[in-house]
């Protein structure tokens, strides 16, 4: 039944940024090349991508990893421009359950510098809660990102989060893990984007991803991709109803099963 549910729901938001998050690193790409995406969900990804936000937008996502509530991730985001080419965004994400959870609240600012370069920075407040008696710990860190519009068809993005050595809690020698990511995207037309990227969380293996976003119709998108992380295949779609965009995607692992995610975005002016 769960599998059927997942199959029926599968989809993705073109502007959706989907995470399988390891909060000890602050950020870790999940489905697809997050760092190369632009739009509202850059609020929880590469902040440089926020420059694509032209109007007030808000959104919500929920991911249920392997259909385990204990591994679920949910989040909300809000973005709006304060000046042409200069948006601000707020994001809130939560991972885990009552015995262990991670919360991230971030505030981002992005700026366009000419035609070629977008930059963004995000200040992150992280909170880890350990069970009923073990208390919690809070940290502050940052994420910086750049997007390069190399040509009309090709763009690239880089992102760095938790760049400084920050101990996870007082008296511990465990550091918050630095995460780096880079991706390149190619768009031969407005209906198609192909992107490839790599990310690296400190002390962990590289993760490679390749995805394709295809828009056969004006209000309907398809996404499919492969990656070398926990969800080697992902696929989904998104569609637009007036000012609302709904996206559904599912990752799939042979042994671990499906990881469905739903994304809901609202723009106070039409997306298209």
């Amino acid at each position, binding site marked *: 039944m769960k599998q059927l549910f997942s199959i029926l729901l599968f989809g993705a938001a073109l502007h959706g940024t989907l995470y399988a998050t390891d909060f000890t690193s602050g950020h870790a790409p999940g489905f697809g090349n997050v760092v190369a995406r632009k739009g509202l969900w850059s609020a929880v990804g590469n902040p440089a991508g926020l420059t694509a936000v032209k109007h007030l937008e808000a959104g919500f996502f929920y991911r249920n990893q392997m259909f385990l509530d204990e591994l679920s991730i949910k989040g909300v985001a809000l973005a709006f421009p304060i000046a042409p080419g200069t948006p601000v965004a707020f994001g809130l994400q939560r991972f885990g359950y009552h015995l262990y959870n991670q919360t991230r609240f971030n505030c981002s600012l992005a700026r366009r510098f000419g035609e070629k370069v977008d930059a963004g920075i995000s200040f992150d407040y992280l909170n880890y809660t350990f069970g009923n008696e073990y208390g919690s710990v809070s940290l502050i860190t940052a994420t910086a990102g750049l997007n390069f519009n190399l040509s009309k068809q090709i763009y690239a993005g880089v992102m760095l989060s938790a760049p400084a050595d920050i101990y996870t809690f007082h008296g511990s020698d465990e550091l918050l893990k630095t995460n780096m990511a880079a991706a390149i995207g*190619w768009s031969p037309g407005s209906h*198609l984007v*192909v992107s490839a990227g790599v990310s690296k969380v400190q002390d962990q293996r590289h993760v490679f991803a390749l995805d*394709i976003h*295809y828009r056969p119709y004006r209000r309907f998108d398809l996404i*499919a991709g*492969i990656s070398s992380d926990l969800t*080697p295949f992902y696929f989904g779609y998104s569609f637009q109803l007036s000012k609302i965009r709904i996206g559904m995607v599912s990752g*799939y692992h*042979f042994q671990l099963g499906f990881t469905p995610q739903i994304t809901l975005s609202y723009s106070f002016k039409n997306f298209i």
Partner: protein
Amino acid sequence: MKSYCIFLVAYFIYVIPSFSQVVNTEEGSLETKAEQLVSASGDEQPDLNYLADAWHELSENPLNLNKAGYDELMSCGLFSEQQISALLMHRERYGKLLTLIELLVVPHFEAEFIRSISALVTTGTDIDEPNTGLGRMLKDGTHTIVLRTGLVPEQKRGYLNEGDGARYQGDPHSLLVRYKFNFMRKLSFAFAAEKDEGEVFRFSKSRKGFDFYTGHFAIRNIGKIRLLTIGDYQISYGQGLVINGAFASGSSSDPVSINAVTNGIRPYSSTGESMFKRGIALSMGKQKFQFDGFLSYRKLDANLNEADTLSGPDQFSSFQTSGLHRTDAEIQDQNALTELLYGGHVRYKGRNFNFGLTGYGSRYNLALLRDRQAYNQFEFSGKHLLGLGLNYSYLFRNVYLFGETAIDKNGVPATLNGIILSADSKVAFSVLHRHYPYDYINIYSGPFRKSSKAINETGIYSGLSIKPSRVWSLLLSYDQFRFPWLKYRVDAPSRGSDFTLQLLYQPSRNTQLTFRFTSRNGETGFDDNPFLTSRIDRTLHRGYRIHIGSKISKTFSLRTRAEFIRYRSDISASNGFMIYQDIHYHPMNSRWKINLRYVMMDTDDYDSRIYAYENDVLYSFSMSAYSDSGSRMLFNVRYKLSSSVDVWFRYAATFYNNRQTIGSGWDEIQGNRKSDLTLQLRLVL
């Protein structure tokens, strides 16, 4: 629109001469396909000679694109379903093609592809009267006679007299005699006789000269009869999940063209001794419906169980598919089993969709009784088999859906489904899912798969083709699969993944540069398990290849390849390296055609071996697995004695740096050199 086409023809007329001057010739495409098949097949080697036959038959009788219908276009194996549909729609709308250049305006046809098939197709106006009499066909047809002999000069252990007589009963020569008649794809008959090295050539009560005979008579398009074949033939339908006589591998050289191209009934006259049926096959129908029926009764090689009180005399333990009958044991297995196969296929073809239903039944005179172990307990045993399957394909704008679902005699279903999407003129991608249960019984199937049999496998394959410009192409594929039950030598459920990246750079028609990276993760068992309990050995196989092809003048072409293999497992590690240089001398209108190759290889062991296609005589395929440390040289020459007579000579030799013997068992050779000679004569009348 017609005038636009004529304009296009005139505008592109300057490219016509270039069609004959490409580096990626017909042979280059064939080489790529063969390497991909062998590399993906692992231990099961495909019948590449059949592929060579089919390819050369097409080059000798190019397909007329103005006359060929859907079936002919599909059966030739050159075109995808989308291309066929686009071509037929173009013909329907605008009439016949004036030249091949006109294909440029047909969707899904690119200039590079048109060049690669230009020698195999035509738009000419050949005489093809529907009521041509038999006498006229026999008079105007083409007769081809091929004589071939081969020899490994170094003596193998099997030819030595070791006290109880030599093990190989025959001499070291291989012989092939083949005759084929063909009239414009309408009438063909062929006959071939073959003897492998070590096999006996003798006429007696028990031996009838050559070791293997094959032949067929085939006639096409007589009234409602589309094809009638008497003799030897192959059959393949749908995605090959029910029945597929041709070899299907895990992936194609094009990561997006993953749907099987099956030919239905195909007359057979190649030298593979196990990949055909023998009897009669008929295909009928017109317009939307097609009905095929086939009946085959033939003898097969099999390992008989020894007669004893437990197993009895009416059983065999396995099929023998090598086709070799050199030793007493191999001769004893020859024709030991009789197979009766019958079945049919019904197809409905709509404008954009196809449905097909295939069914078969088979019966053996002896029962298969395997040596039962945990891994093969669900595999076929007994005397009878049944299978039924439904295949479909649907083309909607730029999306092509295809698939097949089949059930075996126990009702166990297997399925394969895929989608190919041409998202843009420069981007196409594909996804294919397959599920073959561990207890699915079908020994005639040959669909997309990773292992040697279409059982005990589940996987998802995805492919991506990006052509951002005229000179650059990027091909990617990723396949993840698992085997839910045990396998031979693998004592636990296992899994694996394959990734391939290929970057092509073709700055001009005469130069092509290819970079290829492959990564294969797998799980296997141990040859000699060093552990007390069963364990799985995880393996990682990575390959890096650079290939450069360049036509440096009108007569000379060069090909250079360097390849590096890195193999790792839990208990071993090895590296392999190979580099070769080809020189091709192919002057136009010359009697001579010469190919030279020099190879240097250095691999730590067989796990890091490297495959490469080698030029061979016409109608023959050669794939070498380069392993160990040494060098190899190859000399291949064709001389045209007259317009009707061609002679080929091939000499190849491998020199090993660190060996005193080559091979094992009865194939063992003393010394560090192994060579082979081939001589072939072809007469075309």
